[in-house]
């Protein structure tokens, strides 16, 4: 018997089961994702053949949703750093079941996000020019250096804590021979001796410490690509910390979303307890408030300065062309998530049940219909069309917003009884809001006229939307495949947790 055979326990079965069996749902998911990726690949080939003319990008707005995706995914990649490295360094024991999911998010988000820059360039071979003609004072060169460093570090940081679990898989019966060989290769002969444990802990500790400044530097350098220019809305001294806070915020939201999905699909309730969601929910709320503070500080400062270009940008964001997106970001990405994370502490929410208009099903259906109609008008008809069937665009958007708000209010009492669902819902909203936020950082500042000319216009085409959808599908595909080949929970770390922690977690779960 191999030494690690003894470690295979019944209560770990939910974690290991996905590695042994794949249901029809998994294959349907993979097929769907591959179809989306296929459409995205076709779109990219079209772009390569014809050029950037097939996109909505132009000489004025050269960074559209590609760079929005880039900043978004780099932000999401901060999940692994914060959850794993900071919590590990500070000795937070509750982190143990969630570290691997967080570390995997980091790697996959970087692998999907970084190529977005090349896609935006139109001619990917021009990336080599950064190395051939790169200047040390250029944030773009340092962006490449820091992201490369971060990818390498994140891969190593994901791999190191996997070694004991890989040894367990190597010794586990019922797996295909090639997989056991692969696990054996990756496990580098792990037998769990005290010396091996000591070496492993040294490696993990070193990486946990070094990966924190690396991650912070990555998003700071990304922010400098904007902040080091003299454009309105970008040239700001707080852009570094503003981006880092935003990245950690969206990173936590991403890990909560992933936890919520895998908890439900793979029945991981024993490992991912309500206590984990509640603690991450508090972190999410803290970062939410910090981000709100930075946002208010940023806009207040440039509004008070009242330079003409800044005033024009603020007007466009608050009440002009980009106001719908801006206020949607504020409500969906900041205000609603704050309410949802606080919901277990808001008994007043239960009174909403008594309001006759707030029945979840009818108001929810109305919200879906109105949102689809509004979205269709916004994206399908172009901004120059001001009315549909004699009804003003703004009226449709206002009704859609009211019904959506009503639907959310109708859901609140139900979510109050399901704190995990409320926090997962909040994190999904944060993800949507943070993507919108990145869009309104990138596009309006480029659309703003620098001389006495018109605002530039930008309408993403099917090529950009297809590649964006393919990017998200690739991220989900990589994660789904990772979950098929490696345990999502760091089993050996959970096993080594102090005994009091799981008991407390079980107690809280039972209470919930």
């Amino acid at each position, binding site marked *: 018997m191999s030494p690690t055979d003894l470690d295979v326990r019944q209560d770990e079965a939910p974690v290991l089961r996905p590695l042994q069996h794949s249901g029809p749902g998994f294959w349907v998911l993979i097929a769907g994702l591959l179809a989306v990726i296929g459409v995205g690949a076709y779109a990219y080939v079209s772009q390569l053949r014809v050029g950037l003319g097939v996109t909505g990008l132009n000489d004025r707005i050269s960074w559209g949703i590609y760079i929005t995706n880039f900043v978004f995914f780099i932000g999401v990649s901060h999940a692994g750093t914060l959850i794993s490295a900071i919590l590990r360094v500070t000795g937070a024991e509750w982190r143990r079941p969630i570290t691997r999911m967080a570390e995997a998010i980091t790697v996959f988000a970087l692998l999907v996000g970084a190529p977005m820059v090349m896609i935006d360039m139109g001619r990917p071979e021009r990336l080599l020019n950064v190395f051939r003609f790169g200047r040390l*004072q250029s944030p773009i060169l340092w962006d490449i250096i820091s992201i490369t460093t971060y990818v390498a570090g994140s891969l190593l940081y994901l791999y190191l804590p996997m070694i004991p679990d890989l040894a367990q898989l190597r010794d586990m019966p019922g797996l295909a021979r090639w997989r056991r060989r692969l696990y054996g290769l990756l496990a580098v002969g792990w*037998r769990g001796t005290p010396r091996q444990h000591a*070496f492993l802990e040294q490696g993990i500790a070193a990486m946990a410490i070094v990966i924190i400044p690396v991650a912070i530097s990555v998003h700071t350098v990304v922010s400098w690509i904007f902040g080091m220019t003299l454009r309105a809305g970008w040239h700001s001294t707080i852009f570094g910390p503003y981006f880092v806070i935003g990245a950690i915020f969206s990173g936590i939201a991403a890990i909560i979303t992933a936890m919520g999905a895998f908890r439900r699909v793979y029945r991981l309730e024993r490992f991912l307890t309500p206590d984990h969601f509640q603690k991450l929910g508090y972190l999410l709320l803290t970062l939410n408030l910090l981000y709100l503070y930075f946002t208010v500080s940023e806009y207040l400062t440039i509004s008070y300065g009242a330079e003409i270009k800044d005033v024009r940008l603020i007007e466009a964001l608050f009440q002009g062309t980009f106001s719908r997106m801006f206020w949607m970001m504020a409500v969906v990405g900041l205000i609603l998530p704050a309410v949802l994370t606080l919901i277990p502490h808001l008994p007043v929410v239960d009174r909403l049940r008594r309001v006759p208009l707030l029945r979840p099903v009818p108001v929810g259906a109305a919200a879906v219909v109105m949102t689809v109609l509004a979205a269709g008008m916004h994206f399908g008809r172009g901004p120059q069309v001001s009315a549909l069937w004699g009804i003003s665009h703004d009226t449709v958007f206002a009704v859609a917003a009211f019904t959506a708000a009503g639907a959310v209010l109708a859901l609140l009492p139900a979510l109050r009884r399901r704190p995990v669902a409320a926090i997962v819902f909040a994190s999904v909203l944060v993800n949507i809001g943070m993507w919108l936020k990145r869009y309104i950082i990138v596009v309006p500042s480029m659309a703003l006229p620098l001389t006495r000319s018109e605002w530039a216009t930008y309408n993403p085409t099917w090529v950009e939307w297809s590649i964006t959808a393919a990017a998200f599908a690739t991220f989900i595909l990589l994660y789904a495949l990772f979950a098929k080949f490696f345990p999502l929970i760091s089993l050996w770390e959970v096993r080594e947790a102090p005994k009091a922690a799981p008991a407390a977690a079980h107690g809280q779960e039972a209470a919930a």
Partner: protein
Amino acid sequence: MKRLLPIAMLLVGALALVRSAVAAPADTRLTLSGPSAVELGEEIALEARLLTGGGAPIPGAVLELRQVGAVGERGLRQATTDAQGMALLTHREYSVPVLTLRATFAGTSALAPAHADLRVTVNGVRVPPSVAMAHRPGLAIKTALFLLLGTVWLTYLYAASRVARVALDARSPIQGGRVR
């Protein structure tokens, strides 16, 4: 009643004609002439002439000289037209190398507003770069940057070496029986 209707229509039509004749201000034309290039600080003497659409001079009108820039206009000085509809406007420039000057007539209830532009190159203006940036970082900054980067990669190397030690330890016999 039927007789009164055409009269009323005639009256309304006449009233509209009179009203339009009273309300519409007369066309005006403004011309601006002057040097195309001057030296730094040299007086730029500009001659503005305000005429009606029919070519008659408009005396006593107030003209304003403005500088037109990328972010708006700023007023420089004013002058009143003489009997020939002419006004002399002067300005000295010390900082802008290519100046766009605009003479404007704000208009009255009887005269339509008008404006005319003239570009004047001012020789000898030295424009400092708007951004003062060192072309290359100095040795100290380069050293600091690469030391930081080197430290990070050395730490990676150290962590990778720990994996190598784990692999090497796998070859040695287990001491002390069963472990974790």
